[in-house]
């Protein structure tokens, strides 16, 4: 069974540009989560989808971040326009049900110059 995949693995962009990160959860997992780790700090929750609906987006830092999960399968996280402080590793995770173990993807390392 394939795990959670994320694309790209690395992205280097300039301040003001747009970047879109993609996450493919494990097939059949209704719950999809986005997290972010800024260098040396804790991993922080961004948002949670149940199927295509946003269950909780309380962790989204500001309106420059837009997450979608059309059709309840893969999800995208767009940052527009990117700022320096957006640099970090963005993790996606999925679970079959709430309270279940969350399976994490390898992360996308975003560097904003």
């Amino acid at each position, binding site marked *: 069974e394939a*795990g959670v995949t994320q694309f790209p693995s690395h992205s280097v962009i300039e301040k003001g540009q747009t970047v879109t990160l993609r996450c493919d959860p494990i097939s059949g997992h209704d719950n999809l*989560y986005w*997290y972010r780790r800024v260098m*040396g*700090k*804790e*991993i*922080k*929750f961004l948002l*949670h989808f149940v199927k295509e609906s946003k*269950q*909780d987006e*309380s*962790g989204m830092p500001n309106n420059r971040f837009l997450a979608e999960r059309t059709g309840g399968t893969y999800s995208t996280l767009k940052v527009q326009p990117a700022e320096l402080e957006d640099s970090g*590793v963005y*993790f996606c*995770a999925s679970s079959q049900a*709430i*309270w279940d*173990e*969350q*399976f*994490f*993807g*390898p*992360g996308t390392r975003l560097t904003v110059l």
Partner: protein
Amino acid sequence: AQTVTQSQPEMSVQEAETVTLSCTYDTSESDYYLFWYKQPPSRQMILVIRQEAYKQQNATENRFSVNFQKAAKSFSLKISDSQLGDAAMYFCAYNGAGNQFYFGTGTSLTVIP
């Protein structure tokens, strides 16, 4: 809000020896789950062990065990007979009623041959 604290940024252990990684958390909830995740240098985070707060018995998974002290809000991870493959970043995580994962800042474990 819940917080998770890992006070040891780095730890090292001799191969075949035992090491304990500490984790404390703060919460007002009575039902929750605690996790230890491991992130090897290849970056994919994987679950090491999970503890339900309502269970008094400490969880064990082969060489990995926890010391869960609910009243003290402590959740340490013991790795016995350490192996080179145990070298990784270890994250303690809390999952409560909001179903968000709250992570600590991580402990980088080095295994010395």
